[in-house]
């Protein structure tokens, strides 16, 4: 171990009953570097970080941790934070009803004679916010600022704890492009001030852009450590390490067979659910053909989800005006059941809070959107339920010991397969997939893409909403762009590329 090493984790092994989550994992982080940890979902990244942060206390794992040259034995998060290691979780740990300043000082409020010293709090908060590039009033409540800024507040909070090693778990997962870029710039800034970072991310382009070295973890083992500059690492190299093989292409080969237009939305206008004069969909029109995969591109907050959900049985917002035509006939879909009966299916962007009942098992989830099909008389037929779920488990290759398993126990990719199965079981004509691969690892993404293409080949229409432009470009036969609740462009597969899309996603119709 040389002087430049700030952290070394040596032969970490962590077992859960029946499972070895980490086996003999070693990682070395140099002082003042950004060190990325890559691996598929379930590879053991988060477990490793929980060991490091003391969430799994010393004695719960085997192996040694050296921090700044000394062996450390953290017994809880407090002790790791005292040493200068701060972890920022994927789900932010801020309290929405408290102000920025209160959040930053939560749990370590400075007092004078037993009373909180608000002058000091606000003054320090301003300094910290300046360091992360925030210019809000420190008394603004956290719920009133965007996710991107909340992320910055988290970092400010870490800086306040005089952090030496900052751990960021999927920091940009919920951020749009410009907020992500800002965050990455900030991380470089911290690096130049000597603060080391460990970053867990699925966004390989970001890792390639910012990381100094990369440790790859696969199946609970550390596979290799790459030095980005010295080794000339690129995305393909990382993927090869993560999956243990090279993925020739990130998208399965596909030749679309596109039929006639069967689904059309005209002049769709929808108001915001609570703010009465704000429109989330402004006079939007689009159509989908049979066998076609249609992409919807737009920045976060552009109104993509709002459009999808308002079309799906008006499950979002205040419907103002607009028409839906299915096979040339106008239909009115006032509720989700009506939309499902009309052959629509909507897979939400937020699996855990909107897509799944995490208390359910795989088989009940699979049939939950069309229980009537397995109900005879009054009785829900559980044998048929089991049979149906088994069928989808096999055809979608869901990795699970059995369909009796709870969905909460599955990885993101497998959860998504169960959600897809649930909607495939309703035998829809049009599937709307909102961020279908969010939080899913590379290998599972490839499989999901294959499923989407297969659905299109069966003559169904598929709408894919995604924040990842490469995904839209690789998958879609046609792409609409949305900006501030309006459709700003329609590009064919040939016309579309990152630049042309980005231009339409960020500008109004006039400049397009």
């Amino acid at each position, binding site marked *: 171990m040389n002087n430049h090493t700030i952290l070394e984790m040596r032969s970490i092994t962590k077992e*859960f*009953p*029946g*499972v*070895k*989550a980490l086996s003999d994992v070693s990682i070395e982080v140099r002082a003042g570097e950004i060190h990325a940890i890559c691996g*598929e*979902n*379930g*590879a*053991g990244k*988060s*477990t490793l970080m*929980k060991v490091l942060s003391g*969430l799994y206390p010393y004695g719960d794992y085997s192996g040694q941790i050296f921090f700044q040259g000394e062996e450390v034995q953290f017994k809880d998060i407090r002790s790791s934070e005292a040493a200068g290691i701060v972890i920022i*979780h994927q*789900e932010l740990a801020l309290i929405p009803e408290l102000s920025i300043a209160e959040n930053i000082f939560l749990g370590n409020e400075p007092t004078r004679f037993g009373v909180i010293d608000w002058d000091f709090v606000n003054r320090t908060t301003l300094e910290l916010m300046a360091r992360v590039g925030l210019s809000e009033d420190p008394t603004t409540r956290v719920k009133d600022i965007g996710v991107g800024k909340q992320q910055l507040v988290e970092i400010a909070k870490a800086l306040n704890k005089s952090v030496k090693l900052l751990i960021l778990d999927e920091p940009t997962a919920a951020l749009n492009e410009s907020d992500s870029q800002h965050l990455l710039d900030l991380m470089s800034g911290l690096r130049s001030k000597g603060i080391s970072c460990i970053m867990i991310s699925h966004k390989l382009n970001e890792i390639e852009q910012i990381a100094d070295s990369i440790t790859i973890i696969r*199946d*609970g083992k550390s596979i290799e450590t790459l030095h980005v500059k010295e080794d000339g690492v690129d995305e393909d190299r990382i993927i090869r390490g993560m999956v243990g093989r090279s993925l020739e292409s990130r998208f399965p080969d596909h030749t679309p067979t596109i039929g006639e237009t069967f689904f059309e939305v005209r002049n769709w206008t929808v108001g915001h659910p609570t703010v009465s004069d704000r429109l989330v969909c402004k006079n939007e029109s689009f159509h989908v053909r049979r066998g076609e995969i249609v992409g919807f591109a737009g920045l976060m907050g552009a109104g993509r989800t709002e459009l999808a959900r308002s079309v*799906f049985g008006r*499950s979002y917002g205040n419907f103002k005006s607009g028409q839906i035509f299915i096979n040339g006939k106008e239909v009115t879909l006032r*509720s*989700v*059941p009506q*939309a*499902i009966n009309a052959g629509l299916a*909507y897979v*939400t962007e937020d699996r855990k*809070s*909107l*897509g*799944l*009942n*995490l*208390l*359910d098992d795989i088989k*009940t989830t699979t049939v*939950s*959107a069309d*229980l*009537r099909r397995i*109900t005879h008389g*009054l*009785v*829900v037929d*559980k*044998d048929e339920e*089991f*049979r149906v779920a088994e069928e989808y488990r096999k055809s979608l290759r869901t*990795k*699970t*010991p*059995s369909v*009796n398993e709870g969905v*909460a*126990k*599955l*990885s993101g990719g*497998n959860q998504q397969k169960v959600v897809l199965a*649930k909607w495939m079981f309703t035998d829809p004509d049009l599937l709307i997939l909102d961020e279908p691969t969010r939080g899913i690892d590379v290998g599972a993404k490839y499989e999901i893409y294959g499923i989407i293409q297969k659905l299109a080949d069966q003559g169904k229409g598929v709408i894919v909403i995604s924040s990842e432009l490469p995904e839209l470009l690789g998958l879609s036969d046609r792409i609409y762009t949305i900006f501030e609740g309006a459709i700003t462009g329609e590009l064919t597969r040939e016309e579309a590329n990152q630049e042309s899309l980005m231009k339409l996603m960020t500008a109004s119709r006039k400049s397009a």
Partner: protein
Amino acid sequence: MNSLKQIFGGNTRQFGMIFALVALVVFFQWRTGGKTLTSGNLMNLFNGNSYILILAIGMVLVIIAGHIDLSVGSIAAFVGIVVAIAMRDWGIPWYLGVLLGLALGAIIGIWQGFWVAYVGIPAFIVTLAGMLLFRGANQAVGDSNTVPVPEGFQYLGAGYLPEIGPNTGYNNLTLLIGFALVAFVIYNEVRGRRKAQKIGTELPPTWVPVAKVALLSAVILYATYMFATGRPGTSFPVPGIILGLLVIIYAFISNKTILGRHVYAVGGNRHAAELSGVQSKRVNFLVMMNMSILAALAGMIFVGRSTASGPFDGTGWELDAIAAVFIGGAAVTGGVGTVVGSIIGGLVMAVLNNGLQLLGAGADDTQIIKGLVLLVAVAFDVYNKSQGKPSIIGLLTRNFGGGGGSRKAESSAPQPAPTEQAVGTKEVISHDV
């Protein structure tokens, strides 16, 4: 121990609650010198607790859907007094009185369901208001007086199965019910086994189901014997029959029908349920309304048993019902719970109550012990969940409720080729803090 496991399918600890119930009965039988398991005491136990158990049936659905109902005691009292006065002053026959009571319960249910489901006021508030409102209404209508009910109506709460058929020395109807139950247990086991065979799952050796059926049948027959040989004029009590029917009906609804699925779905994740086409408002409305109807029924049974309706009927019932549901394995956050589990939870409380009374314990000690039991039962369950072990009570009760056969068959289904370890790892990691 292994044989026990095989008989009950899987983990013996799943049966903690039933075991606790049996242990309690045995304990009190010993301590009271045999006074617990007597015909008279068992009848007492059923008669004196049937209304709480009926409330627990409705309450568990309310709690699964993610709500609570504090108003059941007051509703029971209000319905009781209205029905009693209607029969006394208008002279309507007792069966019309029952119908009137159920209708009144439905109307109250519509009122509460409307506020909870369609206006969106938390059920805690709506039913807290209802608790005050209907208690006041009871005392306003009845002038805080006690109103007696006619004999026909008393049959509802204190009646027994009549003596019919040849004189066998036993109550024939009770015997019939007992035998029918045993037949059903056997039929169910055979059917479950056939189904399992059809799906192609591995079956436990034959002696296992035989032992299981024998054990269950023995318990049923013993109970039948007890009820059929009470002092002359008594037999299986009418409230017990009503309760039994309700358990069957509601276990069926919650376990086998679309509506039942939807209740669990709404409680588990309302947004996800709505986006899957579940009309959550309707579901919420129905569970709240159903609760009030059952509260009305419970109130009438109580009035029948105590021969009169009074201003303090039903005080504290809501808490007994809620306690039964939570001891029976329901989750405060909704989405989890079973009808049969709640009945077992209610019986645990009832046996405790009864046993302590027989031992001569005062109301003070009884309350303290009941409070501790509730706390310990739920704490034990929470501890187990936090250890990543399955919820004992949850598992226990999931295996019941009519779906026993197929559930068990599935859980012993052959595990498809063990997938890579990563699956297991994910399970642990997704346990986010």
